């Protein structure tokens, strides 16, 4: 019943969030326009740890704000946790950590968390608030936010986002300003949340973090989605293969066939042709695996192909 009237891509999908043809154009008073999102179509399954990567100005933050109802889309359709973005009931199930969080400097960490809890319609005890702070590594709950380091602020923001065990955690640069040891802790926390069943949407410039936390990623470039899939899929390269032959094969013959230092570069057709030539020369294939890239390479390749 719930699927009636939904676009085909969204039917039958138990997605944490789904967008179709999402566009956002910022218009200035003087008639100028900037297209931040250009027909984005994407679905993130519930329970996924989704990484959003892309260069600066790609539209990642705008996309996140659309999901939260902070920015109104210019076109397309958006569903978040089966509801409309911006809907109060939906927002009650989301935890969000903004990229640059402005925290009230005059309040203590506990006062801030208490305030967020009330606004989230929660009534945690002081002990629960202290635990929430200890979980992110903040032991002094009475310390004023004004005296916090950037990393401590980020931790407090994370604690606020995780308050009330939200179904969807949207984190914009969660490890920004946090030291390497702290990053490990944050990563642990995110994995805990993921294990709890929360859907994670992570936007981070630290691609290694995304790689370690997320199981799905998408590359956003100039408001368009250029790549999306499981982490393994996007890291896999379809034009480079690592090949191992039985010992005793003529190395010169293999090089002539295209296998240089156990690596073949080319598409599947070329690979099969090269394998045929090698086998004709007496070589016997032992293993063949596609080569993998890290996310940095993925992004770099994506940007290269786009340009």
């Amino acid at each position, binding site marked *: 019943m719930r699927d009636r009237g939904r676009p085909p891509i969204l039917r039958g999908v138990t997605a944490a969030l789904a967008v179709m043809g999402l566009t956002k154009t910022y218009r200035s008073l003087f008639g100028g326009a900037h297209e931040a999102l250009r027909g984005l179509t994407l679905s993130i399954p519930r329970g996924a740890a989704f990484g959003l990567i892309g260069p600066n100005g790609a539209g990642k933050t705008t996309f996140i704000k659309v999901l939260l109802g902070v920015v109104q*889309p210019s076109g397309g359709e*958006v569903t978040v946790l089966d509801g409309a973005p911006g809907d109060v009931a939906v927002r009650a199930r989301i935890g969000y950590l903004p990229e640059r969080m402005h925290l009230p400097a005059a309040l203590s960490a506990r006062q801030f968390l208490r305030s967020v809890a009330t606004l989230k319609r929660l009534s945690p005890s002081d002990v629960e608030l202290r635990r929430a702070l200890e979980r992110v590594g903040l032991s002094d709950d009475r310390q004023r936010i004004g005296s916090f380091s950037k990393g401590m602020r980020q931790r407090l923001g994370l604690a606020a986002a995780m308050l009330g065990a939200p179904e969807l955690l949207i984190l914009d640069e969660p490890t920004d300003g946090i030291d390497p040891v702290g990053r490990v802790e944050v990563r642990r926390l995110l994995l805990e949340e993921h294990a709890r069943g929360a859907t994670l949407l992570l936007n981070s410039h630290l691609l290694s973090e995304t790689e370690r936390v997320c199981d799905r990623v998408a590359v956003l470039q100039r408001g368009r989605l250029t790549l999306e899939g499981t982490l393994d899929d996007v890291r896999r390269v379809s034009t480079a293969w690592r090949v191992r032959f039985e010992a005793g094969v003529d190395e010169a013959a293999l090089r002539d066939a295209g296998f240089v230092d156990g690596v073949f570069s080319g598409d599947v057709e070329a690979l099969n042709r090269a394998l045929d030539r090698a086998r004709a020369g007496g070589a016997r294939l032992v293993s063949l695996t596609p080569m993998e890239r890290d996310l940095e390479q993925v992004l770099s390749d994506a940007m290269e192909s786009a340009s």
Partner: protein
Amino acid sequence: MRASSRRKGWWWLAGAALLLLLGGWVMLGAEPPPRPPPPRIDLPTRMTSAELGRVEARRTYMPVAPLDDAGLVEVRPPPKAIDPVLSLIPEHLERGAVVAEVNAIFNSELGPLLFDCLTAGNTRLSSLADAGFDPMVHVDRVAVLDDTIVMSGNLKTLPPPPGSVVADYGPHARLIEPPAGTRLGVMGVWNDQLLVIGENAAETKALLDRLERREAPVKPAFDDSIAYGEVYGVLKPELLGAMFGDVDPKLRDLMLETTTGLTLHADVGHDLGLVGDVSAKDPAKADELRRALGSFISLARLQAQQRGKTEEANLLDLARVRSGDGAGGFRLEAGVPNEVMKSMLASCVTRGKERAARRADAGAE
């Protein structure tokens, strides 16, 4: 959610416009009425040019009585223009001297009402009228000088009290002695312009002699420099003390102890405006008296308010004690607005008529 279907909150805008219009409509004309200006009462604080003219017009060269003894040559000071009424003021007042500009008062806005108030139910006035004497027209001034009463005006038609004995006193005056048993003193009419009433014939004759300068000239307690306002004069401490005696004995004692007198000026014609300049012996004591009088007025006002006598409280609100002149003197001011005067006088007239009616009924029975 379809982007285009997102609620734009138009009803907020519609509500804003509606409320703005409604608010404007509600506030239309909701201006607080202009603050009622405090009743402004003109107080007689200085002599006006008209009053100066009046003073100068009244200064007269009095006819000098002929010498009794033709063989002696008396050296007299050169004649000086004087105000005949004020010239009768004694040199040393015991209780005070007050002059009322009766003609000015009776011919003012409040005059007729004031006259009716004073005369309501008075049957003796009809005998005066029968004789052709109209107090509204023929009386100019009335003065009370300690125990003596002086009246000026056109007194030609003023009839003597029935049964009086009339005798000439010199070429310009005549003595009128009312029959024994009446409370009226001996009257002396001078030149049909001035009536003096003394306690006995000797006192009246002395006044007439003084008027015609048959006696050594006396310097009156005050001269015509204070003759402004419609009522003016000087009240001595004894009289002032007596005024407060029943109300506040402490104030009476302080008054007797501190003051040397009070120079009074009052305007009655439109509003009643009273100014009293108190002169004192000791500046420190005078300041004490000043504060005591201020407190007395405030207290009276508060009491009036508590008793719900709003009009009285408002009148007392107009009374104030002005700051001192540095030499111990200070000024008292009081006022009664025109509307209040009218209503007070109207009720006075009604009460007088009721009294007269009751007397008439009693007489008939």
